């Protein structure tokens, strides 16, 4: 589904060029649960932004579903962000003073056509927040806010869900709940790409890619999770 070939990314500030990603080669198949790990400033978030069509690469190739992303115009990238991917951010990024229901509906406003209200209800139900539908975003706990963000990411039934440090602002109990939801979504067929610097969070993924100083230093399967997932399937 995703293939990165010799991807490089530089940030240019006036005359100063700062390399952020170097020689990234990566393939991600449909249905994977991948964690991109690395210390702060390693380039993992930049990689996620490029994968999620929020940022553009400086050189190399990004093939998404057999299409070269570099050839896509702004409007098509916006449609991809709307239809193909969903984002969960560390700081939730919910609309302030706006209800849970309206927050989850947001991507549908940009989908063209009439808003299918059932989709909103289903997305909220899938994170078990139906009872909070009419609450304003500022009336929710951190864990609930992140569940709303997940529902918003899900509402258009995207192929990939990107989660950037989704447990970073949560207590451990809420963090565990969020990771359980992401695992459930992966089990339902969504590809989940997680960006984190926490081993505890990354351990929920089936594959872990480690980045350091803008380069991939390791790419390995997380056997523990694979065994757990298989056990779950047998049950």
């Amino acid at each position, binding site marked *: 589904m995703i293939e990165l070939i010799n991807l490089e990314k530089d940030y240019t500030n006036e005359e100063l060029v700062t390399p952020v990603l170097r020689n990234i080669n990566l393939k991600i198949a449909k249905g994977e649960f991948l964690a991109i790990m690395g210390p702060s400033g390693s380039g993992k978030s930049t990689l996620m*932004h490029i994968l*999620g069509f*929020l*940022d553009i690469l400086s050189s190399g190739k990004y093939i998404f579903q057999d299409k070269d992303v570099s050839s896509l115009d*702004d*409007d098509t990238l*916006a*449609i991809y*962000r*709307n*239809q193909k991917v*969903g*984002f969960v*951010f560390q700081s939730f*990024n919910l*609309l*302030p*003073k*706006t209800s849970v229901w*309206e927050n989850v509906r*947001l*991507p549908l*406003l*940009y*989908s*063209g*056509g*009439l808003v299918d209200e059932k989709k909103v209800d289903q997305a909220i139900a899938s994170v078990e927040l139906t009872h909070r539908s009419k609450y304003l975003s500022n009336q929710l706990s951190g864990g609930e806010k992140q569940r709303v963000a997940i529902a*918003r990411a899900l509402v*258009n039934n995207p192929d990939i869900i990107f989660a950037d440090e989704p447990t970073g602002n949560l207590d451990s109990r809420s963090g565990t709940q969020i990771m359980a939801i992401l695992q459930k979504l992966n089990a339902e067929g969504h590809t989940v790409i997680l960006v984190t610097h926490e081993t505890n969070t990354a351990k929920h993924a089936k594959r872990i890619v480690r980045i350091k100083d803008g380069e991939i230093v390791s790419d390995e399967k997380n056997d523990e999770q694979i065994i757990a997932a298989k056990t779950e399937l047998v049950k």
Partner: protein
Amino acid sequence: MHFDWHPVITTWQMIRRNKMRSFLTSLGIIIGISSVIIIISLGAGAQSLLVNEIKSVGSDLIGVLPGASESNGPPASVFGINITTLKYADGQAIKSRVPEIVDFSGYVRGAATVSIEGRKKEASFVGVNANYLNIESTEVVSGRFFTNEEDNSASRVVVLGSEVAEALFNFSDPLDTHVKINKETFDVIGVMKSRGSGGFQNQDNEIYIPLNTGQKIMLGINYISLMRLKVASGADVDSTVEEVKKVLRDQHGITDPEKDDFSVRSQVQTLDTLKTLTDALSYFLAMVAGISLIVGGIGIMNIMLVSITESTREIGLRKAVGARRRDISIQYLIQTVVLSMVGGLLGIFFGVLISWLVSVVANYLGYAWDFVITWQSVVLAVGFTFVVGLLSGWYPAKKAAELNPIDALRYE
């Protein structure tokens, strides 16, 4: 085919989240539009007041003022400049040589303090001829007007305006009493019918004395400041005006019409002049008020720019979930147009309300003030607010649309 409601929904959400700010954003437009509506309405109301006043005097009159004037402008004497060239004899010459003129009266005017037994009333005295009632189509409610003999002999007799009579005598009969006008003692021989306030003068606060008395005793002059000529019914007013001018040129030894030292106007011409003046004045004032609309527009732009800075992360989020550049720019453009137009509609509402209240109060005070709201001013206001909304929203909308989603999401 369906209508895309999402910019409307988003606009509604943003306005709802910032109610106070939205109101304050629109306030400049509310004040600007209501000012324009009020000024245009008051201008039209004031015009109606003057027109009603002139019409009430009668449309078969020709006025002669001393001093030349441009074809559409007023003569210098209107602005209080004393010109001594117009004489009562000019009126006599006109009456004898222009058959269409059936009657005339000369006018002089001055300030008067009228007093009796310690009671005082500030008023204007008007020196006129005995045929004044006929010229101005009015009447006395009690007593009589003075006679030609009393005028010729400069008698000290006075007819009081209704307001002066009421102020000095309350409701008792003022006839056959003596009042002091400035330092002279006059016999009160009549009281005028109330004519209401109008124009620049309150005729009920005037007192009427013989022209000769006014000239010789009160003012010490031999000229008049105005002459009104009554045209025979059915006569052509325009050609009569020309005849009057010819006589006056003969009287004053003028051969070149460019050098006329008088102005002759029929009531129709006076009405046109007044309308030109009041229109010019009210459009000028409306333009001044219109400047506040531009200030209001800049206010909206300023607050939208602040709002965009505050909503940078939100714009980043909207882009992350699929908003295109045009979705963002349309959203901000709609927001400014809605704020501006809601301000405009509220401005129209308050403008109409205040104009109506002014007309009610003016009528209550006895002025013949019409409540006038022209549809042009309302259409102009709505159109202007729409344009102000578009112009003031364009730059902020462009700025918001061009935000990079990553930079926007990282904005602190």
